[in-house]
């Protein structure tokens, strides 16, 4: 396999890990006003991701950074084309980030309410917009021969795009509610578990709809039809979705979360596999597609970055896994009494 092909796969993997990790904290942020019935429960929800949300978010920086390093032309076309959507996502991430840190710093209800809104909006907007933008990437963007986007934010709000937004929203809500089931006890735990089970059928239906809509709105299936073994990604993803529900019912919540992680990674790869070798297909003309081959950096850069990634990414996964392990277990009311808790 060539350098550009390897990098295409790594690029997809980094985005997949981003959605798998930050996905559940987006989900929790959205569920926040609904599942957190009082300040104590709200704080438990925040503290369930408190030690790890920051590390999760860096996968976005890395995915973006790697897009820049390995495929600078794709980075340049993608980020300038999706300007309005990315600006909205950016502002949302900014207010969410400071909300976690600032919320507990002043003991006033009005102060906390403001940051509660920030947590919700800062989680909801990225979840939905990432779904909309990625669906539009799968479908094809109006990119001309100079790589200039001939459209606006509103062009992204087409049926397939919105369906993608809905899919991501449900994926993250489900993933978040499963995480909460692991990390909480008592009534909050019961509510989280019930939420997951209620969301599940909607997620299944939306996923099936999305798979079907992809047949009509995208060329993703071409790669699958040419190499039918690739359908295993779709099968694995759907199997993981069923496994997740199975494990919830058996109260094996970590296995359920691991399964829903596979669902997210598998969903992202459904698109990545289908796109290859395109990164940003153009719906004006396929001649204007931004591909892994016409958008990549020089072989020297790709080789150096490969060495960097082979050294650092396994290390990152190892120490992030250690952080998750260090903070395993339930978040309890006693934990909230510690001065450092959010």
């Amino acid at each position, binding site marked *: 396999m060539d350098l550009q092909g390897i990098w295409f796969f790594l690029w997809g993997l980094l985005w997949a890990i981003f959605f798998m990790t930050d996905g559940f904290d987006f989900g929790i942020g959205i569920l926040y006003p609904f599942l957190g019935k009082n300040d104590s429960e709200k704080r438990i929800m925040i503290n369930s991701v408190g030690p790890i949300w920051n590390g999760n978010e860096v996968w976005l*920086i890395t995915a973006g*950074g790697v897009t820049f390093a390995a495929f*600078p032309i794709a*980075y340049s076309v993608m980020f300038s084309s999706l*300007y309005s959507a990315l*600006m909205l996502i950016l502002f949302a991430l*900014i207010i969410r980030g400071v909300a976690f840190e*600032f919320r507990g710093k002043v003991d006033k209800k009005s102060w906390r309410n403001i940051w509660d809104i920030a947590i919700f909006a800062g989680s909801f907007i990225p979840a939905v917009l990432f779904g909309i933008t990625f669906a539009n990437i799968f479908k094809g963007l109006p990119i001309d021969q100079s790589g200039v986007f001939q459209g606006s934010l509103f062009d992204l709000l087409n049926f397939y795009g919105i369906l993608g937004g809905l899919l991501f929203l449900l994926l993250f809500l489900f993933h978040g509610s499963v995480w909460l089931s692991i990390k909480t006890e008592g009534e909050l735990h019961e509510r989280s578990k019930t939420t997951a089970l209620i969301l599940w059928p909607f997620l299944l239906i939306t996923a099936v709809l999305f798979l079907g809509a992809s047949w009509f709105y995208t060329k993703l299936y071409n790669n699958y039809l040419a190499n039918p073994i690739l359908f295993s990604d779709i099968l694995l993803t759907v199997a993981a979705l069923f496994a997740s529900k199975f494990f919830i019912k058996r109260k094996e919540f970590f296995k359920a979360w691991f399964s829903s992680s596979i669902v997210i990674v598998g969903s992202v790869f459904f698109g990545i596999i289908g796109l290859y070798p395109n990164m940003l297909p153009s719906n004006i003309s396929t001649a204007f597609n931004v591909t892994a081959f016409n958008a990549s950096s020089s072989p*020297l850069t790709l080789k150096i970055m490969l060495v960097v990634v082979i050294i650092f990414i396994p290390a990152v996964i190892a120490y992030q896994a250690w952080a998750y392990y260090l903070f395993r277990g339930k978040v309890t009311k006693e934990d909230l009494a510690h001065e450092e*808790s959010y």
Partner: protein
Amino acid sequence: MDLVMLSRLQFATATMFHFLFVPLTLGLSIMIAIMETKYVRTGDKLYLSMTKFWGKIFLINFGLGIVTGITLEFQFGTNWSRYSAFVGDIFGALLAIEATAAFFLESTLIGIWIFGWKKISPKAHAAVMWLIAGASTLSAVWIIIANSWMQHPVGYVLRNGRAELSDFSAVIFQKFAILQFFHTISATYIVSAFFVMGVSAYHLLKKQSIQFFTKSFRIGLIFGLIFSIFTALEGDMHGVHVAEVQPAKLAAMEAHWETTSRAPLNLFAIPDEKNERNFIEIGAIPGLLSFLGYHDINAKVKGLKDFPMEERPPVLIPFLSFRTMVGLGTLFILLTIIGLLRRNRLLESPLYLKVMVLSIPLPYLAIEAGWVLAEVGRQPWIVYGLMKTSDAVSPLASSQVLVSLTAFILIYGLLGIVGFYLIIKNAAKNPVL
């Protein structure tokens, strides 16, 4: 206002706002690591209180640095897409390395430091802060290497209308990057030192927790003194190198129009760019510019008139920002020397303490002025000698950038007010001992 100007304003807003928080993170992380290590070594609970007091401020500041940093990574692609496509081979790689090697470590460990007090040993917890300091520093290394490449591009070839990497070690070990890194990092230590000294001085004036804040002041003082002197000396080396590789920047920051040897340095001037002269020049010191730029009083210093008009930087901003930076830098040396002399009599030096409280914002001003000098002095180039800023912007509608610029000013304005309010509130609190 046109697309290029709006895009430049937005970039400046985002980076200068981010840089209000990064310096304190870089320096304070080290100082807190020192405090926490002293606690682990001596068991003296005073050091634990110091760690927690300064730590609380650190975390508010750190959070603001993180969120405003996301903007920067996005912004190269969103607003400077033509630049990104041109330099991605080199610049993109450096940013990606910054993320994989440094950001991950920093962001994962901060969660452990905040929440892990009871989960890991005190020794391990202190080590975590050292690692956070190390990771932040590593991040600074990579981003400065990246900026240095923009100032003095090396290790590349032009191919297919892009800059392609040809020599990675040339890029990461180049003299400009080394000099710019040490200059910047030591400047951030000055910001942190004066912050700690100023806040400590505030409490000492109120005679609160005297031992606590005397110890804190001393840690800040050592940092401040060493790095004020270092920044000035190393800054001279950096300036000489800039004179060599960016002569247009030197001419602009000195409002130097005519090529002369034994070039004088004007203490103050108001440039008249249209007529290629200065309206007024005050305090011309003969030969000083030649000496500062080349360490040779007879050296020829190229004037702005000898550069083609479309390759000249703006004059007023680099001129004023340079003088601000150097003037304040000199003041910092003075103030830390006074602090050294009075370190055992701080409580009997209320005037000095008051000055130190009021001086907290000054290193912030100096460090921003320095960065403005570096970037505006590089104009009209975005990559010196290789790509013009005006050719680098994304093909967007001006209205789009006007809207996002307005949003940045509003949101950052609010965040800044809230953030500094929280920092000041926590800094002014008498610590729990």
